[in-house]
């Protein structure tokens, strides 16, 4: 009995030590809440920035990252996830956080290029040799084609996918909303799996081998070819696609409380420096910096791009029309 009591005491002691050591923090913690495909990008960038910050200020940064579907991540920040900065897939998700008063409403003007330090676009990932001969958006709507794309309700990438297809249909000769709706409805009729984030869809397509085509972020498509081997998949660039601008912002409420505004601001600005731009380009994001863009121009297919402002009048309007409760996406899915 005595030995049992002793071991109990030891267990309690060990437990106390574990709890205390958990609470001790010597360095500055810093949290970047991001969307799904940026995992590899920010892994590299965080290491470089922490190094830079240490040299400049002597402060040791402990940068943490959280990844998931962009809409889901925005929801988590609204629910209290203490993000110093958010680096999400699209402006609307940052707006959603701003609406709750956590970020200043004019955030998009606080940094250059609509607060989007790198861009991307939407392309198709198909099985090697493109056996279903998929060339452009209208091929996705053909009967018998299995399409994989995430759920626009939770994923930022999926919303870009949706709008890219819609915009393509509008820009065709004789294109109008009616025709666009037809095309997009037929594409979603072919969708087999709606994952909650881009990374989930990618594993559905590559690992679970479901579907003929994945509508994907350009960077995600290149990454999967690099990771899984060029002998398995091909990238098809459509004739027309959307300029996707993933947005970044400092979360004002959090940095004010934690006293991390300076480092948060510097972190985002560092994304615009040649070093930051180069890291983005290496991970297949299209850099804003002209010189870096020229250097990596061989990596990206030439594709005609339209912006959300040109075609849809901005994210706020697009979100309400297409992805809000009872919006176009809901109507399409209900009909399916």
């Amino acid at each position, binding site marked *: 009995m005595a030995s049992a009591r002793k071991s109990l005491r030891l267990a309690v002691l060990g437990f106390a030590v574990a*709890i205390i050591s958990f609470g001790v923090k010597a360095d500055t913690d810093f949290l970047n809440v991001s969307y799904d495909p940026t995992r590899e990008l920010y892994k590299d960038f965080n290491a470089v920035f922490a190094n830079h910050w240490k040299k400049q200020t002597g402060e040791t940064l402990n940068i943490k990252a959280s990844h998931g579907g962009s809409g889901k991540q925005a929801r988590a920040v609204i*629910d*209290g*996830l203490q993000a110093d900065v958010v680096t999400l897939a699209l402006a609307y998700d940052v707006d959603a956080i701003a609406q709750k008063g956590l970020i200043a409403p004019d955030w998009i003007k606080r940094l250059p290029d609509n607060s989007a330090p790198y861009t991307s676009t939407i392309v198709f990932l198909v099985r090697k040799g493109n056996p279903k001969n998929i060339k452009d958006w209208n091929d996705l709507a053909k009967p018998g084609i299995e399409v994989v794309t995430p759920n626009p309700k939770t994923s930022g990438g999926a919303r870009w996918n949706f709008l890219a297809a819609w915009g393509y249909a509008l820009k065709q000769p004789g294109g109008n909303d009616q025709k666009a709706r037809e095309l997009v409805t037929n594409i979603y009729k072919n969708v087999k799996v709606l994952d909650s984030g881009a*990374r989930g869809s990618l594993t559905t397509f590559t690992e679970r081998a479901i579907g003929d085509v994945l509508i994907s972020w350009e960077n995600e498509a290149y990454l999967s070819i690099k990771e899984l081997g060029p002998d398995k998949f091909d990238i098809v660039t459509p004739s027309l696609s959307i300029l996707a601008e993933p947005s970044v912002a400092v979360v004002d409420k959090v940095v004010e409380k934690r006293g991390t505004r300076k480092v948060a601001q510097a972190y985002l600005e560092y994304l615009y420096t040649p070093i930051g731009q180069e890291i983005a380009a290496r991970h297949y994001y299209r850099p804003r910096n002209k010189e870096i863009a020229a250097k990596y121009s061989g990596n990206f297919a030439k594709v005609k791009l339209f912006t959300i402002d040109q075609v849809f009048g901005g994210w706020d309007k697009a979100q309400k029309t297409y992805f809000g409760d009872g919006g176009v996406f809901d109507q399409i899915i209900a009909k399916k």
Partner: protein
Amino acid sequence: MAGGIATALGAKSIRGNQRINNATTESPWVRRLIIGTGLFYFTIFLLLPLGAVFVEAFRKGVDAYLAALVEPDAMSAIKLTLITALVSVPLNLVFGVSAAWAITKFNFPGKRFLITLIDLPFSVSPVIAGLIFVLVFGAQGWFGSWFLDNDIKIIFAVPGILLATIFVTFPFVARELIPLMEAQGKEEEEAAIVLGARGWQVFRYVTLPNILWGVIYGVVLCNARAMGEFGAVSVVSGHIRGETNSLPLHVEILYNEYNFAAAFAVASLLAVLALLTLLIKTYVEWKAAQVNAQHKED
């Protein structure tokens, strides 16, 4: 010839034996079918996946396997999972024993209702279990702004993970003990009271020794779930690497990052844990049966 007769005789005598047990045995093909089906399911659904975990884990060699486990994010996931189990299991132990004691040894109105309530976490989906805590403690929730103003982190931090885990593992110890203690009845406790024992003494010297193995069994199951819970923890975690990622969440992250060998290496830790749990469980069952047999002899 002689051998043939012997076999025939042997077969006859076996058949003779069978006839005696006809009521409890099935014809050979039925037996083979049932055993075969059992083995088939066992292989497909248990043995194969378990084997696959270890094969994938060691695909890139032992060095890669060990590297995946000592990597800082993995270590912090292990630490978080251990802390979660160390907090939730003792709490559920205290709750489970007291609840089972109250329910089986005393009569009071609403007893059945209480048992149903204890079962609630079994019937509620873990996602709902997680969302409950986001709704209550999240920044937009009932108490969220108060906690935020006072700089107390619940959701997307360790306390939230603890709350969610305690919720889903709530019934394990109590559910294990209630049938056991109901079967044992309260005669021994009554006898102890007649002999002059006080409440605590009755519990310490009569009830506890009777249920000891049941308690351990419940703790083992509770621990397995506490370490393995995915759904509820995923909702309240916030997925901050090296901070709020438990082992099961870490496996998902590694898998999503094409880090298959590392994902399965960490998964194999959980599998080893499950096997250990089974071993302890088998030992406890064997021990409990022994104690019970002794009890009957007395």
